[in-house]
């Protein structure tokens, strides 16, 4: 789902969590962000899934630009996690453009989450080009 050149890291913020993501392509950037969110919800839950990935969630998003699309996409991943009570570890894009996408998430049921992520915010969110390809910082409200 994403190349070795894609990744994420978590950073502290006074009251929240900052998620840094990078990837050679936009689609991989979005996948890395979904994995970063999963890591916040259940640490190592996607490295060592507790069950086969049989839960799924499919959605479509339209946004004004690619940064808003990334935030809105992650908001939908978060919503799906809470509604399905599942940790989503894989993303497949059925459609993808800089302002809209259709995604299918695959994951597994969980008893609960370790961190209450209230929302994915637009605060200072910006997709930029860097030597790693695409890069973005996001603030998760916890």
């Amino acid at each position, binding site marked *: 789902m994403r190349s070795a050149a894609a990744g994420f890291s978590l950073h*502290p913020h006074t009251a929240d969590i900052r998620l840094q993501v990078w990837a050679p392509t936009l689609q991989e950037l979005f996948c890395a962000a979904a994995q970063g969110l999963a890591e916040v919800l259940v640490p190592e839950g996607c490295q060592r899934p507790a069950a086969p990935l049989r839960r799924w969630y499919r959605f479509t998003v339209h946004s004004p630009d690619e940064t808003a699309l990334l935030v809105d996409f992650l908001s939908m991943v978060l919503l799906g996690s809470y509604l399905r009570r599942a940790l989503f570890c894989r993303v497949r894009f059925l459609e993808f453009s800089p302002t809209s996408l259709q995604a299918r998430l695959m994951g597994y049921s969980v008893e609960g989450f370790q961190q*209450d992520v209230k929302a994915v915010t*637009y605060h200072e969110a910006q997709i930029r080009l860097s030597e790693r390809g695409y890069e973005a910082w996001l603030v998760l409200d916890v």
Partner: protein
Amino acid sequence: MVRKEQLRRLSEVVWEIPRETRADMRVPARIYATEQLLEQILQDRSIEQLMNVATLPGIQQAAIVMPDVHEGYGFPIGGIAAMDLEEGVISPGGIGYDINCGVRLLVSELRFSEVEPRLEQLAKELYRAVPSGVGRGGQLKLSIRELDRVLEYGVQWALGEGYAEEMDLEYIESRGRLLDADADAVSREAKERGRDQLGTMGAGNHFVEVDIVDKVFDERIAEILGLFPKQVVVLIHTGSRGLGHQVATDYIRTMLSALPRYGIRLPDRELACAPVNSPEGKRYFAAMCAAANFAWTNRQLITWEIRQAWREVFGAAGGRLRVLYDVAHNIAKIEQHTIDGVSRRVLVHRKGATRAFPPEHPETPAPYRQVGQPVLIPGSMGTASYVLVGLPGSMEQTFGSTCHGAGRRMSRHAAKRQVEAEALKRELRMRGIVVQAGSVRGLVEEAPVAYKDVESVVDVVHRAGIARKVVRLRPIAVVKG
């Protein structure tokens, strides 16, 4: 970063960044803080965020922050902004994701000596009775139709269902129901997230805490509020749970798309807003009111659960648990305020700020009208909390508002690095505090060291004449997710 030299000192505890400091500011930015607190505040970007708020269309008089301010997203936490109803905007970011996060205080008829022998049992019973933890549902799973009634009727719904006593309503801000709520303005997704969350605490900094009245600052007002030394009370801190979070997410997205239509340019997308009287603004306000009603009903259901637990532990000898008051600290409300000598209706955004109406205000419950609206300021876990009352200064200076808590000063990550769970539990136990927590991680993240000193925060609002200290509460049991 803003430097101290850029600030003008207006009084011992009030500082101002003049409007001229930045070309896009429409009003000055004001900070309530001692010099020492100000030094802490200037270490993050909360004041830059306050200056951004000062650029919003229709903002009146000043963008204001309380001494518990800290950096948020878009608006700083601890902020107040009043908007003109014709020219101004409404911003979900000025209210926060946890719509009507707030505090309720229940007062018992028992003294500490009567509760102490059963304190461990009480803490366990409260932990069992009030579901907590991330995304955890409660005992009720409402149909969407029933949930719509909660969203529109708030605590009135709970009264009809037997979860409230008639008298409770009198002691809840807005009687636990905002009349502008419209359940149809709340998305299906938000309703799905909320339908099993009534009567649940959640996680993070939310808690149920048993306290004792530890110090009385004003005996006359304490007596009128029904507070006495060594009295045992129960403090509830929670909000609108996933339903409120989803309402905010939905409407920030809606408003971002609508910005070009209204020609609004923002320094930060998280300030996304729409004119108060636009279709988007009106619809968000109706949804926010509905989420606020949900939050008040949530605290009411928790009250019902706590009353059950109390009876379980103390039986008839436990007496009654009366609602002293319930206040929202993440909300926007249309209120009457005097601006430049003219009485006008404005939309007051409070994000991490508490309403503090003075004596004789018509919205203060009749039994408290001579002393002012009670203000409940929870401290960090294991530290003191305060009961204050609003003063006339709040109407003159801060649109009838005051602070909301201790205010975070350290990231959760830093708290985890610095605090060892067992040592923290030991320390709390040595101070006579029983802890029932679902998660060690949650406990450590909320360690007192991660917060500002609540006493110095409360002293600022007391000295500024916007709220008066009445009593200090000391925790004896903490229950959290």
